[in-house]
């Protein structure tokens, strides 16, 4: 530094002589800051609750939620539109309409989509926005944190999908062959609820894992959940056991059982491919296993990786 700079110029200040200490403006601390006044530590469950609550609040505040809900509730319009447009020309079976919507849209498209949309960013967001340091310096159990986040995701995603699915069901009753009061139909509805929740669990957990493990969970998620799952069902052999779709398909009550042989159209021609079926019980076990393994891997990733190291965005 410039040798001629005086101490005053260096930013030092004169102090009041009467001040007891070396001169900083004296400051009295409140009682709660004194030693041994730490608030009670509530442990695992409190952290889980906090994590879930915070994730819920963040999710609910986003405009993204509205976008997701908008997309998820679009199918409700289809049976209604159908009943107006085509009732004169041909009678639709409400049962068929609902089952097609539930299977083709809710289970196969919306669950992976919601998983990527919400769960993919659950952990990734904190890493990307670099708020992870705050969380990792709390005495919070990492597993409680991950479980809390996951719980929040499950609540939001399954609420959206189940509400939308129920509304679609109600709208489908405008057509013949489906009734809000018949037990078999309601059982069917509840069956789909179950499948949706199970699929969300597996897809969600997998997406959370991608988020904790990679920098671009969404791109990889799209490649795996849409690209790979599609390719694996085309390729003959057993590779489709490495998809989640296989097990969710096995849980579908009506269509899945009719699909043990599929015709595949490719550039090289059309050929048939035998599909090895999985029993519903095994499928449930498999889905739960995928969930558990993915969440476990996420927790291990959070425990072991050093998220504070990242500097630049988009690297």
């Amino acid at each position, binding site marked *: *530094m410039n*040798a001629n700079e005086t101490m005053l110029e*260096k*930013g*030092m*200040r004169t102090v009041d002589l009467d001040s007891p*200490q*070396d001169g*900083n*403006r*004296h*400051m*009295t*601390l*409140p009682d*709660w*800051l*004194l*030693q041994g*006044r*730490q*608030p*009670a*530590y*509530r*442990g695992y469950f*409190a*952290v889980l*609750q*906090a*994590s879930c*609550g*915070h994730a819920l*609040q*963040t999710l609910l*505040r*986003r405009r993204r939620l509205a976008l997701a809900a908008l997309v998820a509730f679009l199918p409700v319009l289809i049976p209604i539109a159908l009943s107006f447009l085509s009732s004169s020309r041909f009678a639709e079976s409400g049962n068929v309409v609902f089952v097609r919507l539930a299977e083709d849209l809710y289970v196969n498209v919306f669950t992976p989509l919601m998983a990527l949309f919400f769960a993919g960013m659950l952990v990734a*967001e904190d890493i990307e*926005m*670099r*708020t992870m*340091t*705050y*969380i*990792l*310096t*709390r*005495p*919070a*159990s*990492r597993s409680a*944190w991950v479980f809390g986040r996951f719980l929040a995701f499950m609540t939001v995603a399954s609420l959206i999908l189940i509400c939308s699915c129920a509304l679609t069901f109600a709208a489908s009753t405008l057509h013949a062959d489906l009734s809000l009061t018949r037990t078999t139909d309601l059982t069917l509805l509840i069956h789909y609820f179950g499948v949706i929740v199970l699929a969300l669990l597996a897809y969600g957990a997998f997406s959370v894992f991608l988020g904790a493990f990679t920098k671009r969970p969404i791109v990889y998620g799209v490649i795996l959940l849409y690209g790979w799952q599609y390719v694996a069902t085309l390729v003959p052999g057993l590779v489709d056991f490495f998809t989640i779709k296989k097990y969710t398909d096995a849980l579908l009550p009506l269509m899945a059982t009719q699909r043990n042989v599929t015709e595949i159209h490719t550039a090289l021609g059309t050929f048939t491919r035998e599909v090895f079926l999985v029993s519903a019980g095994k499928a449930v076990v498999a889905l739960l296993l995928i969930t558990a393994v993915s969440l476990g891997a996420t927790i291990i990733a959070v*425990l*072991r990786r*050093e*998220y*504070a*190291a990242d500097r630049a965005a988009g690297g």
Partner: protein
Amino acid sequence: MTAIIEAQGVSKWFGEVVAVNNLNLSIESRITGLLGPNGAGKSTLIKLALGLYAPSRGEIRVFGSRPRNNNAVMRRIGYCPETDYFFENTTGYEFVYWLNRYWGMSRRDARRAAEAACELTRMTERMHDPITAYSKGMRQRIKIAQALASSPELLFLDEPMNGLDPRGRDEMYALIQALADAGMAVVVSSHILYEIERITDNIVLMYRGTLLAQGQLHDIRGLIDRHPHAIRVESRQSCAISKDFLDLPDVTRLEFEENALVIRTREPNACYALLNDMARKNEGLIEGITCSDDNLQSVFDYLTR
């Protein structure tokens, strides 16, 4: 005093870049200034102590146990990071509140602690505004608030003075001093010397990932007392003054500047004695005496050279 943080042979590298190299260190329970230029490894050391990083080699212990993923240690620690990142779309109050909840407080405790912490950092008025509307000083204060809300025993402040205006810095000094008086151990990292000088003389000097020196500032100064001092005497008659110094045995060099004389000596005491003598005898002969080698800057310069 007992050591709160103990590092034994700690190294940390990222890929091929060494951030901290073979660090042996123990920090006691009072204000410790962590000093070093940018890239010296101060932040890395703090993050190692917080368990955010696992040491590549060696061991670091905080309150006697390893900090990484150790909730018992985390419960006693507060941390105010250097970077300005917050949860999206939150107000200052909510930010502190949720971090309190993550800490493991009940709703009521978290609310109370958040309010109290905001009051302490004088954020009560603006605490319900979104963080994006805060100025740099307010963001700094809200970060301090979240670190203090759980009344930790050990507080890490990573570059807390960075970007603060003089008033903000004054408040920060006062707060740190008060916290230390209340018995909290505070580790403050900074690269600006007079900032640290102002709060503590208990310093840890780091440079390029290695520990240069640790201890009381004057101890360190004593350590380098054998190092030649350069005393700058401002006088309009520097030639006249210089004659007397030619006879002093330990003067190694005399340099003339415009209206000033720089004396390099291995024996500062004798030089000062002579200067004081002269000044007493001749009013107005000596207009200024400065020694650029007896502040923290020079300690630092000397050790890093």
